């Protein structure tokens, strides 16, 4: 006997086969046809197995009175799924003229409501017993509905939470959510000490809390995030010195920061060099440069050490991560001098400026990461004396400000 489930699989297999043919005739490329044909074969296999095993339904052969067969029953009541399916179509239409995200949401809704519609229709005709049909529907759809629905609900609450947190200032966020945590703890304490409290009260409180979070999140999201200050880095200080040299010099005279480029300075710069104990390091397969106690630079590379070589080689235009380890007794930074480049000022004049990168000032025993992407080969500057190289040699050089003996040539082919 061909059961309802088998019919569903047979129909799906036929649909996939027809779609494969249509796709192959009307579209370029073979991957769509291959995918649909594969689906047709798989569905056919499932249909055969399902038919042979009678859909695992031991009742399908049982004789039933004529008046209880499905065809003799009144039509099933209309569900919400056709409406939801149509609404999903509207969402897609709206998305097509507004933004792509709404189209994606509409497609997801279309798939979900379509699946629900198919399952409901199938379950309504599974047998003559409405209660059995409802049970069949639940058995099939609940494992999908509960986790997906739960994930969406939790996602909405979390997103709303994040909007609220980003709306408050940093300090107020801590204060507000500390108070909120105390409120939640207090309510939980009350519930725990009143075992006789009605379950509806607990559920109602949870729902009210979730609704409050979503409403607050919506309001905060519409109002926008707080202003987030840009953290000063060595790169920002270096750029500031190049882009606005006069203001930078004035700031140095007023004592706001040390004079000169940060990458050539052994002194501590505000904010960028604070908290020097904070270190960042990679766990494997990275280049390492060490500032040794004797004031020299040594290096290690992935794989066998380039024994004997006194230069380090990086690939051109390739991002290379270097861990700088300060094994000296003082706070130090690692800097890289990659020659010079033309810089066009705001007034239209062009100046030659150094191309330098550096780590923050780090304390003895600490490590810091420097990421470098050299766009030019080092031999471009072979004949241009590098002020940070020993004896004014050309090329690219690593150096440590304040330690003249700590230099290492970088070769970029």
């Amino acid at each position, binding site marked *: 006997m061909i059961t309802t489930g088998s019919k569903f699989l047979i129909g799906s297999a036929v649909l996939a086969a027809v779609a494969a043919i249509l796709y192959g005739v009307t579209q370029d490329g073979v991957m769509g046809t291959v995918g649909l044909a594969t689906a047709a074969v798989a569905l056919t296999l499932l249909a055969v197995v399902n038919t042979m095993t009678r859909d695992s339904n031991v009742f399908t052969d049982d004789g039933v009175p004529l008046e209880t067969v499905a065809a003799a029953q009144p039509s099933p009541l209309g569900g919400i799924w056709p409406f939801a399916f149509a609404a999903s179509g509207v969402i897609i239409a709206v998305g097509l003229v507004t933004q792509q995200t709404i189209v994606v949401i509409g497609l997801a809704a279309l798939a979900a409501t379509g699946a629900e519609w198919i399952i409901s229709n199938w379950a309504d005709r599974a047998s003559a017993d409405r209660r059995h049909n409802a049970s069949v529907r639940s058995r099939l759809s609940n494992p999908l509905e509960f986790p997906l629905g739960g994930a969406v609900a939790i996602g909405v609450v979390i997103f709303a939470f994040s909007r609220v947190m980003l709306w408050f200032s940093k300090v107020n966020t801590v204060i507000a959510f500390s108070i909120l945590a105390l409120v939640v703890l207090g309510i939980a304490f009350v519930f725990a000490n009143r075992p006789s409290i009605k379950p509806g009260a607990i559920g109602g409180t949870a729902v009210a809390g979730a609704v409050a979070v979503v409403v607050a999140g919506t309001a905060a999201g519409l109002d926008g995030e707080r202003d987030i200050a840009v953290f000063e880095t060595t790169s920002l200080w270096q750029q500031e010195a190049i882009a606005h040299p006069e203001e930078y010099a004035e700031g140095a005279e007023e004592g706001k920061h040390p004079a000169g480029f940060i990458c050539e300075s052994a002194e501590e710069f505000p904010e960028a060099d604070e908290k020097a104990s904070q270190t960042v390091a990679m766990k494997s397969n990275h280049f390492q440069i060490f500032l040794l106690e004797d004031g020299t630079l040594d290096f290690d590379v992935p794989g*066998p050490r380039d024994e004997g070589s006194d230069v380090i080689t990086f690939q051109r235009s*390739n991002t290379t991560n270097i861990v700088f380890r300060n094994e000296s007794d003082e706070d130090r930074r690692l800097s890289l001098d990659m020659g010079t480049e033309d810089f066009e000022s705001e007034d239209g004049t062009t100046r030659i400026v150094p191309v330098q990168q550096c780590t923050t000032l780090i304390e003895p025993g600490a490590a810091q990461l420097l990421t470098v992407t050299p766009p030019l080969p080092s031999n471009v500057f072979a004949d241009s004396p590098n002020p940070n190289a020993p004896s004014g040699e050309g090329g690219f050089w690593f150096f440590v400000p304040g330690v003249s003996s700590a230099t290492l040539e970088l070769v970029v082919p």
Partner: protein
Amino acid sequence: MTFVPKWTRPAAIVGVAALAAGCATDAPQDTTQPAGPNAQMIYDLSWPIFLIAGIVGVIVMVAIAYAIWKFRDRGQPIPEQTHGNPKLEITLTIIPALILIGVAIPTVATVMALDETDDTECIVNVTGQQWWWEMDYPVQDGCGGVSAPIVTSGQMVIPTETPVLIRGTSRDVIHSFWIPRLNGKRDMVPGRTHNLRMEADEPGIYAGQCAEFCGLSHANMRMEVVAMEPDDFEAWKATQLSEYESPAEGTLAATGEQTFITNCSRCHVIDGLTDSDGEPVISRADQQVYAGVAPNLSWFMTRNTFAGATWDLLNATCRDDVWDADPADFGERYLEGVSEECLNQVDLREWLRNSPEKKPMYADPEQLEPTDGLFRGMPYLALSEAQIDELVAYLLERK
């Protein structure tokens, strides 16, 4: 007379055809023909595991097919339904567990052995970008000593019977480096360095292909490892490190040098190339292409392939001479490079004439918004036939 079902004959034909489809005389990327100790380790591990998995798979499929056919629905009464059989279930849990333990022990041992890099004697940086591979040899004492970086592409030259360490990374998206006859795959990830051992027993060319989908021309991102005797490798290094020599004045190649500077040097590097004022010609590929580099063409005609090793620089006859050379003569043949008689003029000229038409790339200037105007691949250069003649003449001297 024995009855033979009618369906057995066509089934036998289909079976034989399916088996025959697995046979090939020209299969340069065959993992069942290991040509080095690393690939041999993988092969020695894979065939017994394949055998065990095959036997288990056949047993399971036959059992399922037998059950489905034997107990198919014929309208018979439903048999008595039973639930649970602890002895059977425990047995069917223990047997697969023992099989998996048996497979895991040699697998873990092989993985750890392949991960070993301390014994390598030569470092080669391999960098993937859409859609070609760059190989560079950093300054090192390994590889018999490399005094200045060597940069090449498409073909990686290594000495035989020498464990080589590949330090792999990528400049744009994730690629995967795979030379099936020499070792397994290794992903090349931007911002990370992944290590891979490589060693070839005998001189020869070992083909490979990017094994991680990386965009439009992923299928055209190939590479080859060229293994040669250590003495031949030294000769290859000497060529790669030799000084640049401009073509003789008044020749077509000399005109080609200027054509190269005008049209190609924005992206391509030729070490030692200078302009008419004697100043070094500086490539700013980072301002032109997304990956920030284009293949270094310093010794272009010492290679046998171009455009991501998709096409041969040698014509079919000369290519066969190199690929089929006796191991003892291979190095000499390869080091001859590409002569005018051996050059695959058709493909090279088609490439210069309109590279995006020959190899799918993101090279339409009007569709570069996602990369801020940077090309992914080589753009159409609108070269005239005369300019192509000049460039071919110039490139022929790059060996």
